[in-house]
């Protein structure tokens, strides 16, 4: 079966309204769909004709060797890159090319491979920035503070405190981010993304550079976020153990092309995937 045929089959399958997984989580209908995305930088083709979808409530992993185009894919979703060909469908309608802040307002949050926190601010302020889209008071109301601006601040603070509780970072809430160790910074970045109450959360290598314990913590937070808030999660990760344990479905990329798509078990037994990871002589 060629990839195109498989994709047609996938999309037919996708018209279903979802199903219940073995561990009892509800997977809904398709929320985001990438259709035949091609992204070029000058002569370099970073992504070549890739299609896949993300369903409501699932944990979707994107894996592949270095330089496969995984991060570029996330950047397409979050609006940093605009593909030359292909369409992005979100919540049932085709998305026009938009700036990253507009994407954020549609309920898509993300973290970065190399931490992108605001170093000059405290943990609390960093997480509070995740609530900016919910803050509607104007400059003048904020200049006078008393009244609406203060109520809004307190209201959002309550939500942020829930997230801080959830990620167990209460003790460092007033610490400047620049003083934190790497693992905690990753956690704060997740907190900031979760504070935005995203429908879709994109995680770019959430476990990179962590030790086993930190990875276990992070996995727990990801699973809990998915479970408690119902957040759909798309993640890029190199740790295969983590990927196979966490995700419902996996997309495998290599040299900008999709070489596999399916449940962890299917992907694990896919010959193209094995070749890409173990290396095989290209003719």
């Amino acid at each position, binding site marked *: 079966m060629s990839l195109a045929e498989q994709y047609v089959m996938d999309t037919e399958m996708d018209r279903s309204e979802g199903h219940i997984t073995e561990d009892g989580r509800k997977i809904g209908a398709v929320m985001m769909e990438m259709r035949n995305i091609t992204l070029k930088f000058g002569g370099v083709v970073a992504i070549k004709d890739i299609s896949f979808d993300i369903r409501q409530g699932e944990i979707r992993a994107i894996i592949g060797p270095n330089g496969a185009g995984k991060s570029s894919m996330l950047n397409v979703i979050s609006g940093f890159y605009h593909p030359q060909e292909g369409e992005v469908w979100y919540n049932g309608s085709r998305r026009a090319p938009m700036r990253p802040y507009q994407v954020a307002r549609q309920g898509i949050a993300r973290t*970065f491979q190399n931490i992108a926190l605001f170093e000059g601010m405290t943990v609390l302020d960093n997480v509070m920035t995740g609530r900016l889209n919910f803050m509607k008071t104007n400059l003048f109301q*904020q200049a006078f503070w008393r009244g609406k601006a203060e109520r809004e601040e307190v209201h959002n603070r309550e939500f942020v405190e829930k997230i801080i509780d959830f990620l167990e970072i209460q003790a460092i809430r007033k610490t400047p981010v620049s003083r934190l160790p790497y693992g905690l910074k990753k956690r704060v970045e997740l907190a900031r993304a979760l504070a935005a109450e995203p429908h879709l959360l994109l995680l770019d290598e959430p476990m990179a550079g962590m030790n086993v314990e930190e990875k276990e913590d992070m996995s727990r937070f990801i699973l809990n976020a998915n479970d408690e808030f119902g957040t759909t999660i798309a993640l890029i990760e190199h740790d295969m153990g983590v990927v196979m344990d966490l995700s419902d479905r996996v997309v495998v990329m290599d040299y900008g092309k999709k070489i596999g798509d399916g449940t962890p078990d299917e992907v694990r037994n896919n010959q193209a995937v094995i070749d890409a990871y173990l290396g095989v002589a290209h003719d």
Partner: protein
Amino acid sequence: MLYREAGDFKTSYEDDSQTFPIRFDRLAFYAALVVAFGIVPFVINDYWANAVALPFLIYAIAAIGLNILVGFCGQVSLGTGGFMAVGAYATYKLMTAFPEVNIFFHVLIAGGITAFVGVLFGLPSLRIKGFYLAVATLAAQFFLVWLFNRVPWFYNYSASGQISAPERTVVGVPVTGPHTEAWATYLFCLVFLAGSALIARNLTRGATGRKWMAIRDMDIAAEIIGVNPLRAKLSAFAVSSFFIGIAGALFFSVYLGAVEVGEAFGINKSFLVLFMVIIGGLGRIFGSLAGAAFLVLLPVLLKNTLVGTLGWPTDLAAHLEIMIVGALIIVFLVAEPHGLAQLWRLTKEKLRLWPFPH
């Protein structure tokens, strides 16, 4: 022993996010307000008002304005002098065109006009950053000074090319013109400084301030959490220029009385205010006050010591003064790059543990 946060429990988020979370700080702040509003006006004389109080108050407003742009939003600007000139000329035009309106509103409207001009010159910030932006704002500085020199409409076609402030009163007391009293001008400027500091603090502790700081710290990440960079940067330019415009208006109308634009609002002014912000501490409202106090008081102090106490000739003292101030700035920045505000914070950290640091 007084300076403790132990036992001072916060039971609401309002309490937790207040400006002075430590009780002693709060009391000290109220005491400073009482002294500034209730005692100083009764003891101030012309020398203190003109040499120390007025320049400090006015530069502090300008420094708060510039700090919002440079310290909070991370957009370097060298156009402060030009924007102050806009505030000054706007007040002058308003004062002469609508003499019946209270000067208080003229100053506010002048701030508003400067905010608009600031947004115009802030537009390049959407494309360029850092030093390149500084050069672009330098264009604002030179263009605005040139404009006010060359277009006679701005100085009402006066023969000298200067603008001079006519007498205007607030509740019957003159605050501009030749017959002002020290306490009146002092209070007039103090009200503006208090208002500016309060507004700046409110903006920077809330959502707007977080947007600015997000842009400053990492603009890509700011955009991904939903900050519109265009609006965030331009609002920083607007608010910053608003305060700088007010400072320019007061500098001309209350402090100097008569102004020649190239002399009063030249590039030197831009650098002076920028130094205040850097020495005081970027991204701290208190830093702006401290920086302004430092650079206003230091020359006065040096002059009094050199000329008054040591009896040196005035011109020699004047030159030495510049050299000493310059050297102090360098020494200071090497010792504490984060400015006076950081020094103050470290002192407070120590004080919290005193006298049992272990």
